[in-house]
């Protein structure tokens, strides 16, 4: 069973449906006990980082997610859920994340500027639409997809300084972090539940990940 962590942000209907479509049993839950006994855990999220991080902390589920990560349970963060796996975010201030992966979430605009790209600010932010994946490391998540496959993004911020966990990136003005993973902790900046059959195949690969030895 895969548990989707329900901490009051975002619409979890499509995510649940996408897992059910690949034959996975799903529980959308805010109960730490349900999440503890899950074979896999998905941390979703949309909206503002500070608000979502506060909700996760206030619900106490941040500890449950950390515990799952520590015990080797396959964990996937999606979109803002992926961003929360990192040490911190610079979205409107500086906010602490779960710190499960090394790196900082930064505005796409800053990442571009730093590299001297798009100086006139012509690129539309957020990146909204379908973009191709470039693999940076081999991962069990990519078992059923190919480099160059398209996935669906909606984001104004991206993880940076995460070379250690970077699995795939995508080109939008600059190369932006698309997929990360280190051991049992994984994340997708894009929405696999909205990425057609490619997305379903990434979720299928995730659902085949086994609990790692701790």
């Amino acid at each position, binding site marked *: 069973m895969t548990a989707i962590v329900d901490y009051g942000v975002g*619409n979890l*209907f*499509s995510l649940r*449906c*996408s897992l*059910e*479509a690949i034959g996975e049993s799903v529980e959308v839950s805010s109960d730490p006990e349900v999440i503890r006994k899950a074979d896999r855990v998905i941390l979703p999220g*949309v*909206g503002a980082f500070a608000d979502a991080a506060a909700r996760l902390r206030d619900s106490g589920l941040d500890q449950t997610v950390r515990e799952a990560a520590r015990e080797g349970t396959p964990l996937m963060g999606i979109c803002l859920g992926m961003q929360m796996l990192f040490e911190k975010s610079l979205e409107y201030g500086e906010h602490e994340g779960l710190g499960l992966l090394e790196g900082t979430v930064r505005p796409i605009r800053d990442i571009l500027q730093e590299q001297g790209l798009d100086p006139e600010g012509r690129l*539309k932010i*957020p*990146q*909204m*639409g*379908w*973009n*191709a994946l470039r693999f940076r490391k081999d991962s069990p998540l990519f078992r059923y997809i190919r480099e160059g496959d*398209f996935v*669906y*993004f*909606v984001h104004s911020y991206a993880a940076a300084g995460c070379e250690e966990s970077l699995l795939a990136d995508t*080109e*939008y003005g600059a190369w932006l972090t698309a997929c990360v993973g280190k051991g049992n902790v994984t994340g997708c900046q894009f929405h696999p*539940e*909205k*990425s*057609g*059959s*490619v*997305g*379903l195949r990434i979720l299928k690969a995730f659902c085949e990940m086994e609990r790692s030895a701790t």
Partner: protein
Amino acid sequence: MITKRIIPCLDVKNGRVVKGVNFQGLGDVDSPVSLAKHYSDCGADELVFYDITASAEGRALFTDILTETARQVFIPLTVGGGINTVEDFERVLKCGADKVSVNSGAIRDPSLIGRAARKYGDQCVVLSVDVKRVDGVFRVFAKGGRENTGLEALEWIRRGVGDGAGEVVVNSIDTDGVKQGFDLEMLEAVCGVVKVPVIASGGAGKIEDFITLFHTIPGVDAGLAASIFHFGEVRIPDLKKEMQARGIPARITEAD
């Protein structure tokens, strides 16, 4: 590189897909759920469901169809029609919509855009505008294109985006249903005033119209059409292949 999106639009009334020419003479086409699944399978990048029902029963039926579609189709879904309040946003988002488009509802109450954007995020709010030239000026029309609001279209769009609309659908009443190509002049004007994605609607009759659209106006992010897809006059896999061959970034799926 981000791809240009191809978006079929399904006008739904009483549980069936319909599409009119110049907004009149509606004719039944197919079941929304099976049509949506078909489009997803053949490479549509996104779907728009437009609820043109007026009755409460029709609205409930629409919500059921939306739910069933979201269970089977895993590409972004935008819902429009009958969105007048933040509660209407909630109603369709719960059923699996990813974005919600506002049109007449925002004309009646312009604060709707800002309130919805603050609650659900800019990326969730799509401003859909029916535009027609009146004495050489782009004007916003309401009620499915029947009523001139007197609003100047570029100013209305700029204001909506300023309030938090994360995307704009520009439907040209002048070219809608005529099948002689998109309204390039109108689209270029809109792209000049906003920095959010712009979706072109109204006038596509053949593959070449999409090629011309994306070649002529690089600021346009997506092309939307209905009947030419429903009646098979343009097949999405053929369109995507032609886009790719002509240097327009397109998402080519494996099934192609």
